[in-house]
Every structure is written in C-alpha cells, then in structure tokens.
C-alpha cells in the first residue's frame, strides 16, 4: 500500500513537471514568436524609405525658430480696400506698409522701378536682428514677420523675405519666399515681365549694393541650394545688375583693366562679351586670369564692400544668345585655377597688373600693399569683420 502511494506520488510529480514543462515551452514559444514579430517589424521600419516632406512656400520653420507665414490677407485687403477680415495686428501692418508705399512709389513706375524702390527702402531702413545668433534669444521680437519688421525695423531673413513679398503682392507683382534645402535661410523670387529673379535683401541690408538683387539661378546656385522642382526657375539676365556693366573686349589681356575699373565701386560684378570666337581653350584662359586675382583680393574690405575672392563664369545669354563672361570680384572662387593654361610670361604680366591695382587701391582707400598682402591703416593684415555677415 505504501509502495502504491509512493508510485502515485512520483507519477503525480512527473505529470505536474510534464505539464509545467509543456506550459513553459508553449509560453516561451509564444514569446519568441511575439519577439520575432517585433524584430521583423523593426527591420521593416528601418528598411522603409524615410518619407520626404513635400516642399511648400509657407508654414516652413527656418533655423528651427522663425516661420514663413502668408501675408496675402494684408495685400488682398490693400488691393480691395476691405480691411474687415483683418486682425488688429494685420490692420496695423497694412497701415505701416501703405504709408511706406505712398512715400516711395510714384505713378507710372514700372515693376522693376517699384521693386528697386522697395529694395532701396528696406536696405536703408532695416537692420539685422541680433537675436538670430544668440543662444537664448531676448524676448520674441516679431522679427520674422512684417508687423515686427516695419514696427521695430529689425529683421531676421524670414522677416526681410516676407515683408518684401508683402510689398510686391500689394503692388500686384508676383513674388515667392524661397527657403534653402537645410531650412536655415530664406529669400525672395520675384517675377518681372514674365521672368523670375532671386532677391535677397537680408544679405544686402545696410549697404544696398545690389549684390543679391535680381540674381539668376546660375549665380544663386553658387551660394545656396533649394528645391528647384518646386520653385520657378530664374533664367533671365535682363534685370541682373551685372548686365548694366556689360563690357566688350578683344582678348584676355583686357581683363585686368576692366577689373581695375570696377574694384572699389559699390557694385563691382560685370559681364564681358568677347569679340571673336570663344573656344574651350580661350574660355579656360579667361577664367585663369580672373582666378589670379582671387588670392590677392580675398577677404579685402574696401569701404562698404567685402571682397571674398574672384571668379569668372561663362554663361549662355538667354536673352541675346551666345556666351558671355561674368566676372565676380565679390564671390569666392570654386578652386579650379586653370593656371596651366597661361604661359609663364603671361602670368608674370598679369601679376604685375595685380600689384599695380592693389597699390592703387591702397592709395585710394588707405593702407599699404606689399609681399602679396594688403595692410590696413591700423597695420592689421587681416580685416576683422565684426557683426553679421552680409553675403548670405
């Protein structure tokens, strides 16, 4: 009897252990399956292409803080003279903007004249908002919208871009606010006579030298990148300021005299239309000459203009046909020197021209030039630029 009891007890323990074992196996199998599912889902998520956000003009945050917002309600109210749908803040903005237009726009002005008048007023009357670069901004300031910009005369790039667009739209000139791919800068695209141009007043504020006024894509692309599938293309050179400085020349030897002519001028970019055939070798040699000037004038500050270097760029002229050569003595070179396309004698002759130019500039603006370096009146070799950069 005792033996039977013992056998039953052992059997019971075995059965319990078996059930527990099977139960545990089922539990772990289920858990493993669940975990496998989670891992599989995780891998699927990792492999999935990140959804690219669609580009839009408004409701975009720049530098993580400043939002591009539509101001069409204000420009529509200006045109319809119906302010009933505007908030008090919008009405005040409209009043300030209307007063400015009354002051600077006259009857019979063309669109380019109206645009220039607004550009000049904004460059002369608005300053950069210092909050932009502070780690912790002081107050909110409204520096990114026309209300704050026109009231306090301080703006971040979004403030300049949206205020300019509002003025343009009030005058029925088509205009868009563009932002760069990284969402750290914004500016305007304006439509004049059916062609679009880039205008970046933030970059020109304070000096108003038209360096970033009505610029075509091909030049703007050297400094910024943006969604060109979304924003309209700016291909025309008609109202690009450098076209007002269109020069003709016979050979690359004429380039130094032209650079000397424009150095120190408020607007110093110019185009050259060369007489005769422009082949690939000629094109490279022209670029090589301009590049020789780059290191001599890099970081040079003459009056209100800062020279970052020099570059030459061949472009097809969409308005008149053929190739024209842009000489920019305020922009950075792309590093391709083409110096091997010039002979030693040519390089020596051009270097002499550069030295002559630098000496004459030192005489005109104060300072001195020796050993390939420009020294300012306080004998500092490198100019220290205090404040926000103007060339963005």
């Amino acid at each position, binding site marked *: 009897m005792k033996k039977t009891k013992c056998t039953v007890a052992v059997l019971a323990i075995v059965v319990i252990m078996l059930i527990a074992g099977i139960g545990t196996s089922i539990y772990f199998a289920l858990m493993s399956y669940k975990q496998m599912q989670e891992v599989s889902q995780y891998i699927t998520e990792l492999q999935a292409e990140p959804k690219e956000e669609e580009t839009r003009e408004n409701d975009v945050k720049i*530098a*993580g803080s400043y939002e591009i917002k539509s101001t069409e309600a204000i420009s529509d109210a200006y045109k319809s003279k119906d302010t009933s749908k505007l908030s008090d803040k919008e009405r005040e903005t409209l009043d300030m903007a209307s007063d400015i237009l009354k002051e600077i726009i006259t009857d019979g002005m063309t669109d380019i004249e109206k645009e220039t008048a607004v550009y000049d007023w904004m460059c002369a009357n608005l300053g950069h908002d*210092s*909050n*932009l*670069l*502070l*780690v*912790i901004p002081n107050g909110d300031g409204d520096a990114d919208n026309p209300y704050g910009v026109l009231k306090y005369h301080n703006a971040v*790039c979004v403030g300049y871009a949206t205020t300019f667009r509002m003025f343009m739209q009030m005058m029925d000139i088509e205009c868009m606010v563009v932002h*760069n791919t*990284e969402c*750290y*800068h914004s500016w305007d695209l304006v439509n004049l006579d059916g062609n679009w141009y880039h205008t970046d007043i933030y970059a020109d504020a304070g000096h108003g030298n038209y360096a970033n006024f009505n610029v075509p894509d091909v030049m703007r692309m050297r400094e910024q990148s943006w969604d060109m599938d979304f924003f309209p293309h700016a291909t025309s050179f008609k109202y690009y300021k450098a076209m007002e400085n269109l020069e003709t020349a016979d050979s690359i030897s004429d380039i130094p005299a032209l650079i000397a002519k424009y150095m120190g001028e408020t607007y110093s970019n110019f185009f050259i239309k060369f007489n005769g055939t422009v082949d690939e070798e000629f094109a490279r040699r022209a670029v090589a000459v301009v590049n020789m000037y780059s290191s001599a004038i890099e970081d040079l500050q003459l009056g209100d203009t800062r020279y970052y270097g020099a570059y030459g760029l061949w472009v097809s002229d969409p308005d008149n046909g053929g190739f024209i050569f842009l000489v920019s003595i305020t922009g950075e070179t792309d590093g391709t020197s083409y110096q091997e396309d010039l002979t030693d004698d040519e390089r020596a002759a051009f270097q002499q021209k550069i030295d002559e130019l630098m000496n004459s500039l030192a005489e005109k603006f104060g300072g001195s030039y020796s050993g390939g370096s420009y020294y300012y009146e306080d004998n500092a070799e490198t100019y220290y*630029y205090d*404040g*926000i*950069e103007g*060339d*963005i």
Partner: protein
Amino acid sequence: MKKIIAAFILVLTMAALTGCGEKTEEVKDVNFYDLRTAMLNATTKLPEMQTASSADDNASELLAYVSDIDYEKVSNFFVSYSKEGLADEIVVISVKDEADAKEAKESLQKHLDHRKNLFANYAVEEAARLENAVIKVSGRYVVLIIADEYTQIERAFDDMIKEN
C-alpha cells in the same frame, strides 16, 4: 527552526531597505556658481557673457534652448553665452543618474550642429571657431566649450570636478 526563519526574514528586510535607501539618496553636485565662475575666469579672451542656469525660475525652458533632455533627469546646469551673438559658449549639465550622461552629451552635440549651421549661414567668419568645440563627459557632468582658449576652460572644469 522558527528562530532561523525569523533571522532569515530580518536579513532579507534589511537588505531590501538598504537597497531602497541607496536609490533615494540625493546626488551631490559641485557648487554650480563656483564652477561657472571658475570656468569663465579661466581665460580673459571671452566676450561679454550672459548666463542662464538651473537657479532661474523658468530653468527648464531655458535649458531647452541647448538640450532636449528631459528636465527631470537634470540635477543642475548653466549656459553662458556671448551677449553679442558670437560663437563663444559654455554649457555644463549634471544629470541625476550617470546613465543619462550619454543622452545629455548627444543633446549637446545636436545643439552644436545647429549652431554650426547657423554660423555657416549667417556669420561665416565665426563658423571656424565652432570646429574647436569640446564636448565631454566626466561622470554625471557633461560639458560643451566653444572658446578660443578652450583648453584653459576645460582644465578649470576638470579641477573643480576633481576637488568635488
């Protein structure tokens, strides 16, 4: 037998209590005012600086400008930055749990990347100075230093932490 069980339960209870006691112990930081003063005075080449810290009323909002770490995890912090919008900046964050130091470091790296983008777009001449930025972890402390004489400031930080 009962005595053995009672002793066993007592030992278990003591162990549990000791364990809980360790978890609730308050972390002790170096004095942050002294730390900030020592770091700011380590060089004469800093521009005029402005400071926000855990002593401010809206401390959690202020920290959010430089770090997205949950404020509950933070024991103390200070942010000293150029009043004129130059690149110079010193941030020290101490976290309650050393395990969160990595998260704090990553948040400061994100902040540094944001500053680099800003300066690259708006003050190119300052942008190069951010390339020498120091971010490092020392126990529960995470530090970011952007300054010309960053090694001297870093040494001041190390000395203060060591003394603590």
